[in-house]
């Protein structure tokens, strides 16, 4: 228990901040994922074959390739790509992007592929009559999407999005390989310096269990909220 003390003697405060980091990265990543899903879902549902192809390419590649490989691509290729873009604009200095941005971008793109599939499924299961009714009433496309389709879609999407959230949360453990100090990295450091890996990795497992348990409770609340009237 001394190992978990706060302050200089123990690893309590370090692990606490690491847990916060895991939460922050997961939340950032899932929102980046939603952003990608909002771009790629319309592409997948589009009438044009070529746009469909782009959407399908994104979801198939990302869901068929290991997360770790994608993270390595971002970790090793991230600053190179940025420097290449910068060199076009006449900037030739070395640019290093920090682990947080690389990590949350990589996890965000992965979770975006899963979110896209969830959104696509949810939109497709909304009754066609809803779209037609909105059209007949002369509601413009924007209001139709935000006031009619989105609320109905969320109700259907939340159970599956909760899976995506759990996957994203667990995937953040992989960005420890880039050196970002989240739960896994901090446990690795602590295990290395105290020579007590069993204790710290088990504690990390408990922290992850706690996070998944709490998020499950919150998501259940949301589900009840969006199921009003059903």
């Amino acid at each position, binding site marked *: 228990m001394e190992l978990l003390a706060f302050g200089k003697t123990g690893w309590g405060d370090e692990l606490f901040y690491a847990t916060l980091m895991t939460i922050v990265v997961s939340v950032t990543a899932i929102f980046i994922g939603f952003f990608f899903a909002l771009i790629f879902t319309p592409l997948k549902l589009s009438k044009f074959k070529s746009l469909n192809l782009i959407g399908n390419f994104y979801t198939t590649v990302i869901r*068929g390739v290991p997360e770790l490989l994608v993270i390595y691509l971002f970790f090793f290729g991230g600053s190179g790509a940025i420097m290449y873009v910068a060199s076009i604009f006449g900037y030739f200095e070395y640019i290093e992007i920090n682990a947080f941005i690389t990590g949350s971008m990589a996890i965000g793109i992965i979770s975006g592929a899963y979110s896209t599939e969830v959104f696509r499924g949810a939109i497709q299961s909304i009754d066609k009559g809803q779209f037609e009714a909105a059209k007949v009433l002369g509601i413009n496309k924007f209001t139709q999407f935000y006031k009619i389709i989105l609320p109905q879609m969320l109700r259907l999407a939340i159970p599956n999005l909760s899976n995506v959230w759990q996957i994203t949360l667990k995937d953040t453990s992989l960005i420890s390989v880039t050196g970002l100090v989240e739960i*896994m990295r901090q446990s690795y450091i602590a295990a290395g310096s105290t020579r007590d890996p069993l204790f710290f990795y088990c504690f990390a497992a408990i922290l992850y269990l706690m996070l998944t348990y709490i998020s499950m409770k919150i998501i259940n609340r949301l589900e009840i909220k969006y199921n009003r009237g059903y």
Partner: protein
Amino acid sequence: MDFDLMFTSFPKLLGATVVTLKLLSASLFFGLIIGLLFAILRINKNIFINKFAYGYSYLFRGTPLLVQIFIIYFGLGQIEYLRSTFIWVILKEPYWCAIIAFTLNTGAYTSEILRSAFQTIKPGIIEAGKSLGIPNKIIFYKIQIPIAIRQSLPAYGNEIILMMKGTSLASTVTLMDLTGVAKYIISTTFKPIEVFIVAGGIYLFMTFIIHNFIKYLEKKYSFSQ
């Protein structure tokens, strides 16, 4: 684009694919046995057995696979007692540690898939068997299990693909699987995109094969023949 690198790294990556496939097949084989065992425990009416099986699947589905591998590879070696027994022969090898972690992980997911398959079997089918005077044991082995396996094929196909992606984590415990070799080539040549295309292509190809194989099985064993 460095096409030369892509050509020279392809055979190396293909060699590493063998390690990935070995890990995958071993963990799927043992995982299916464990999954079936725990699925049967889950539908047991005894509350303690039931809760034990639920606890197992909750524990392994609620934590990242990386933590599980690290606990088994770095953590278990710390227990002095284990080091003196014959188990240590297995546990000191990263290869076996990875297989144990993957097996336990996929076992937890498989048990959930099979459990839901058992629970969706129509009671009428079991009743029909009973009314024909078939003993309970034979109903279970000859009727319930085949139907459950058929029911769970699509979900199990997804699990196989997830597990294939999961084997990439073996590279974190010094195993040179497809991802491990890809990382090694990237960090020595600093050409991430080329290596990613080749290694990702191999992974996608395996996903494609698994996906179609499961589709074929689904068609072969569909009810409406």
